[in-house]
């Protein structure tokens, strides 16, 4: 994307002002979204994200500039501006840098890069899903299916001598179905996604995808209002892992930890969850939605044990916050695009499999709520208050799944809820989503086996 000599000149220019770290991030991404409503192609959004961000550190100061006016003069001028902002008095110690290619083992093989696949083939895929959705149940009256893909080409070079390039391909199908019975209308969504090319859909069961989406919409037609109050809740595997993402993950990001404002700041080695909870952030899982070879700071990604048997083992740390924390960056510095300053973020984050079977968990629950599928949530890392929504829920009575309920919100506090996870299943599964924070919206995987929380506040209309 950028000539190595030019990048070296930009870094040298910045360093000549006495800053102690300089970085160039360049991005050339192409994205496509096709929206099919009721069997017809209604919208196609396509475009290119293209620009460069230049960043410098001096001690605990960080300056950033981005531009998409890309020529030698404008980039050198941007480098001068950010470096001058650091207002360094001592410019005597300026080292020369030698940019060395970072050897990156590509763990995520791509067979059919999305740009090599014709749009009609992509439209064909979502058209078939749409048709299957209607065919799966006569109560379905609308299907809204989106196909998305993105090719993200990045370059990270810095004054530590790193020259790292990576191309990340992602593809996703996101569907919504609406069902009607009498005056009652309900909707449900379903999605699949991966760090992959179009081969993701080679073995993809389109019919099963459509049927699952339709099933969720139709079941809601007979769902009653969810009861409110404190109760045991069984949270299903897969996207149920959003509970860990909100209730713990965000509060383990250096973004909150470094300033000492997270509820989990200064808690390494301490018990923050019950014994049955072990959790991992692993950006190296081949082709998983939240994976990458390197992060957006040119650091190789890794598997990190966040919690082991309830004990806090590590945080997610980016380069800048690593200075405040006196700990090494661990490949978690992420940004939506060159328009964002990177910070520590989650990748594929999940609770590890435990010993209980799904049936064990269910049978040992006298009364409560079974949260079968979830939608998103949010958290305030400083207070620990979090919330997330149940998409499809059921009442549990005497160890059996009873009538469906809808519209439940679960709320709690990070510090308490992790201690209340009392059973962890053996059926670990992952699911993809998008996560928003200060460095923008990025793809993340959440996941868990089925777990039980002995008591959590459930908010419903009943």
């Amino acid at each position, binding site marked *: 994307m950028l000539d190595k000599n030019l990048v070296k000149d930009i870094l040298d220019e910045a360093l000549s002002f006495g800053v102690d770290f300089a970085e160039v991030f360049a991005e050339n991404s192409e994205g496509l979204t096709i929206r099919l409503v009721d069997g017809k192609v209604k919208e*196609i959004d396509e475009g290119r994200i293209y620009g460069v961000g230049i960043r410098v550190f001096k001690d605990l*100061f960080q*300056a950033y500039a981005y531009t998409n006016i890309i020529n030698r003069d404008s980039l050198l001028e941007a480098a001068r501006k950010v470096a001058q902002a650091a207002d360094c008095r001592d410019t005597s110690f300026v080292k020369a840098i030698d940019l060395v290619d970072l050897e990156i083992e590509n763990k995520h093989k791509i067979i059919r890069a999305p740009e090599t696949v014709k*749009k009609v083939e992509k439209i064909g895929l979502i058209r078939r899903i749409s048709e299957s959705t209607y065919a799966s149940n006569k109560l379905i009256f609308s299907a809204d299916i989106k196909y998305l893909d993105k090719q993200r080409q990045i370059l990270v070079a810095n004054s530590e001598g790193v020259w790292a390039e990576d191309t990340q391909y992602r593809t996703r199908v996101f569907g919504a179905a609406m069902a009607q019975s009498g005056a009652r209308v309900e909707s449900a969504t379903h999605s699949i996604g991966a760090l992959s090319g179009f081969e993701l859909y080679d073995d993809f069961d389109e019919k099963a995808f459509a049927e699952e989406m339709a099933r969720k919409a139709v079941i809601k037609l007979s769902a009653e*209002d969810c009861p409110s109050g404190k109760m045991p809740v069984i949270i299903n595997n897969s996207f149920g892992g959003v509970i860990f993402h909100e209730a713990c993950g965000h509060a383990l990001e250096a973004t909150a930890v470094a*300033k*000492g404002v997270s509820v989990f700041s200064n808690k390494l080695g301490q018990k923050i969850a019950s014994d049955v909870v072990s959790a991992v952030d692993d950006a190296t899982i081949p082709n998983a939605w939240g994976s990458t070879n390197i992060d957006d700071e040119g650091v190789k990604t890794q598997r990190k044990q966040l919690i082991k048997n309830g004990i806090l083992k590590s945080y997610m740390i980016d380069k800048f916050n690593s200075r405040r924390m006196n700990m090494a960056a661990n490949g978690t510095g992420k940004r939506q695009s060159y*328009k964002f300053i990177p910070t520590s973020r989650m990748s594929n984050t999940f609770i590890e499999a435990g010993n209980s079977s799904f049936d064990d968990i269910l049978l040992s629950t006298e009364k409560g709520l079974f949260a079968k599928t979830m939608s998103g949530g949010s958290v*305030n890392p400083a207070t620990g208050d979090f919330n997330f929504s149940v998409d499809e829920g059921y009442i549990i009575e005497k160890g059996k799944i009873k009538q469906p309920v*809808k519209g439940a919100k679960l709320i709690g506090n990070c510090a308490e809820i992790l201690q209340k996870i009392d059973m962890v299943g053996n059926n670990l599964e992952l699911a993809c989503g998008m996560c928003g924070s200060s460095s923008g919206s990025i793809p993340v995987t959440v996941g868990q086996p089925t777990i039980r929380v002995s008591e959590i506040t459930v908010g419903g209309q009943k």
Partner: protein
Amino acid sequence: MQAKQFVEQLYDACSSVGLEEFQISYFCNRSENLEVFEQKVSKQSNNENQYIVLKIKYNGKIGEYTSQRFDEEDVSFMIEKSLENAKLIDAEQDDFFYDGSGSYQEVVPYVPLVNKLKNMDKICFLKEVEERAYQADKRVNKVIGSAYGYSEHKFIMRNSLGLNISDERTAAYAYVYLSVKEGNIIKTEAQETAFQKDDDFNPEILAKKAVDKALKKLNVFDIQSGSHQVMFKGSAFIDIVKMLAGLVSAKNIQEEKSKWQKMIGKSVASDCVSLIDNPFLEGGFGTLSHDYEGYPSSYKEVIKNGTLQTYLYGLKTAYNDGVSSTGNGDGNDIMVFNFYLKPGEQKKEDLFSKMINGVYIDELNGIHAGYDMVSGDFSFGASGFAVKDGCISHYLNQFTISGNIYDLMKNIVAVANDLDFDYGKIGSPSVWVGKLNLSR
């Protein structure tokens, strides 16, 4: 190539290849941001970003491509992609460009006091905000950040039918985000300013407002789960007003996602509710003479005394319904301007004394996930104050609030006179919504 030069080349190229109709939009954003932590500048940024959207009409359908790269080869690339996309769209509805023949009203949008800002030492201002916050009360635990931002936006839209419009705007803000602590209780609060008046340049006022709000949260109890009388603070009801914008969007109506289909002229809310879309509000954050299809914007009372008057239309959705655009088009979407519930006559304190006991909600959480437009059901995390014997009492730890938006609109008891835009274009006064289910 410079973006402006690129626009000229793209325009000429589109004209010369004999396209049916085409439109080019150019956006340019410049921004500066500063953040102070522990009396040091911790973050500073200085940014510039431009992008161009090309739309081409082919057989009645519009295809588009957005680019942030302006190389020679991108001219033909953008044309090729836009045309390809137009040919793939097979929806029955035709799409349209606007010719710019209507009359555009002169507007006075929000603008910060730019000259005063130029003379302000932003770093000193932020350092003082932080210092004053710590001095304000010993229970201030951490000033998590104080930040300043300034931005300039330019927009030009031209098309082959003769439309040629442009506008420029500037914005500035500062905010402080902090936590307070007493015993084991930690609460956070933020306060923002938009540098519109002299007081906004006083760091002490900004710090004090945040601290005062935060301290009120320390006297905190759990709510008793059950059905409670609920009133929303304007800044919290803004989240509900945003949901209303979705319900009156002609796009959602035509896609059968809103239940307010065929409800024009019918009652959708209680009599005390009027919902306004006002592009002409002086000093408004959403004040603009045109929409993002270049159509002249217009003032409208979307709901008048509970009765739905109109949906919000762009060119395509208006054509489908055989009406004129209301000037709310944004390509494939619908946009709103200054969009707010019309304030009532009574003070919120008078409403508290009528409500006697209940809850005054000042914050909603998890909006993006806890609301289903199709059924109207919602369930959010919330916090706020207990109302006891007609007065604001202690704060309440996070609880859940559940209901249905269609029912909620019909059950509104009263709307107060304290309209608040919370530094944005969506506004609301305090609203008493009757009984809702709260849980803790």
